[in-house]
């Protein structure tokens, strides 16, 4: 067998042109729907100004060695804001009082912050994951905003909105469903299915007059919650800052490192397969990832040549440098990656022992 560079190009093309590839489930309408939500939140965050900045900075500030704790200021206002009161980097602005049995994992993540040209943008999504492809997202609209075009689909290259289907009030507030399948049926009953999953969104009015919605996405294998389940989730939503207990305590970080991203989640109900991932970075772009899993979890993975790992109290704690940033000298003050892990205390796998006082 031989392969020159053009041969590799040809073989890659043949691989990508796989005639046995399944039909695409990419859903342009869903991309529009989610994209509009993010734009709406971004605009709301821009309008809130300091609220968005406080969230981004609040998530990004940790104590600097040696032993110097920086408190995170409380955050004010904003439709998706919570109160960041210091030692817990994961403050959920809402919490779920009831969930279907298959949705126990909570992820407060996908916080994308950027500062360019003095502009600060921040998207916050609070999601529940039952599987890697099924998500229930929650979104609270800003004051005066009303739900619109929650579900869109594409017909002959044009977007159409799903009809609102009224349902009984939730905690006294107006409520309605929107169904993508209803939209497709109404506007183009003859359109063949693309294989994309259908989904139903529930919108309802909160006691303070604002609107909120739950927007599950499913797959043919995991179709997502029923309408009755969505109603029950909505009726049991709790509002207000809710610190999420985490399985570690971090005493300090090297000077200059700030928390860039934090994700906590698990794959399936009742499983030990959860993962806590935290990315810390310096302004110059050097990144360190902390990866915490129960010992033996599939996501424990490998650490490659740029990592160090410690097993403690049933948890595997790994720290590694991002591929693109191998300047380990910035960790010299704490003794490298291994030394950094010395500042991380494992609290084990029993969630009763986890803490909301994570930092400092």
């Amino acid at each position: 067998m031989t392969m020159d560079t053009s041969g590799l190009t040809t073989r890659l093309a043949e691989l990508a042109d796989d005639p046995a590839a399944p039909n695409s489930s990419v859903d342009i309408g869903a991309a529009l729907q989610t994209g509009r939500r993010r734009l709406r939140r971004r605009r709301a965050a821009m309008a809130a100004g300091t609220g968005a900045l406080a969230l981004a900075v609040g998530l990004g500030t940790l104590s600097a060695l040696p032993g110097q704790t920086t408190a995170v200021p409380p955050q004010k206002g904003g439709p998706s804001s919570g109160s960041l009161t210091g030692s817990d980097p994961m403050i959920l602005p809402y919490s779920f009082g009831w969930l279907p049995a298959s949705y126990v994992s909570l992820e407060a993540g996908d916080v994308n912050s950027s500062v360019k040209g003095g502009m600060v943008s921040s998207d916050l999504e609070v999601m529940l994951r039952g599987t890697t492809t099924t998500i229930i997202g929650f979104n609270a609209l800003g004051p005066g905003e009303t739900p619109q075009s929650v579900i869109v689909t594409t017909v002959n290259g044009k977007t159409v909105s799903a009809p609102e289907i009224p349902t009984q009030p939730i905690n006294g507030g107006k409520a309605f469903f929107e169904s993508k399948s209803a939209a497709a049926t109404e506007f183009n009953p003859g359109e063949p299915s693309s294989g994309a999953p259908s989904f139903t969104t529930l919108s309802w009015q909160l006691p303070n007059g604002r609107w909120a919605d739950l927007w599950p996405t499913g797959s043919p294998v995991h179709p997502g919650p029923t309408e009755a389940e969505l109603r029950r989730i909505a009726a049991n939503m709790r509002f207000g800052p809710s610190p999420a207990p985490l399985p570690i305590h971090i005493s300090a970080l090297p000077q200059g490192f700030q928390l860039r991203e934090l994700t906590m989640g698990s794959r399936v109900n009742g499983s030990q397969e959860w993962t806590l991932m935290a990315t810390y970075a310096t302004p110059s772009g050097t990144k360190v990832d902390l990866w915490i899993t129960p010992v033996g979890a599939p996501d424990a993975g490998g650490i490659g040549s740029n990592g160090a790992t410690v097993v403690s109290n049933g948890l595997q704690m790994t720290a590694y440098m991002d591929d693109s940033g191998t300047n380990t000298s910035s960790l010299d003050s704490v003794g490298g990656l291994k030394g950094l892990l010395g500042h991380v205390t494992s609290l084990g796998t029993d969630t009763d022992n986890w803490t909301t006082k994570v930092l400092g």
Partner: protein
Amino acid sequence: MAKQKRDAEFIEYVSNRTSWLRKIAYLLCSDWHRADDLVQASITKLYVNWSRAGGVGNIDGYARRVLINTFLAEQRTGWWRRTVVQPISEQELAALPDLDTALDLREALTGLPPRQRATVVLRYYCDLSVEQTAEALDCSTGTVKSQTARGIDALRLILDIPSATVTEGARP
């Protein structure tokens, strides 16, 4: 009105280019369903930043960069199992099944670390230059060259190809 125009432009572009993005995604992750997830996430980000994408004058390049970044970011989040980077022993090589050529290549790609895989796909499937690849990956041209060389070496090792038949230096 501006919003409708934006939506129309986005839909037209994505309708025409989803298949292309899906193929790149498949080469990156070796799984069609996951490729769909990657493309779904990428076109959502593309919609949010559509005005910026139009401003750069090369929407294909922008979309491809979003896709690559989404793929690489996913490697860090833990929702997909990390690729373990370890040298393959001769014993393991001998135990590799005698698969058909395409499957061989797919398996070999899967064995590459994510950034090497992305570099090989960009250089050899998307036919980007070193400079263009560096821009897409937000790294130096030197990094692209070294990642390409390592990736090709690893592919050659896994596919059992003589070293003289693949040379990075032959490409601009």
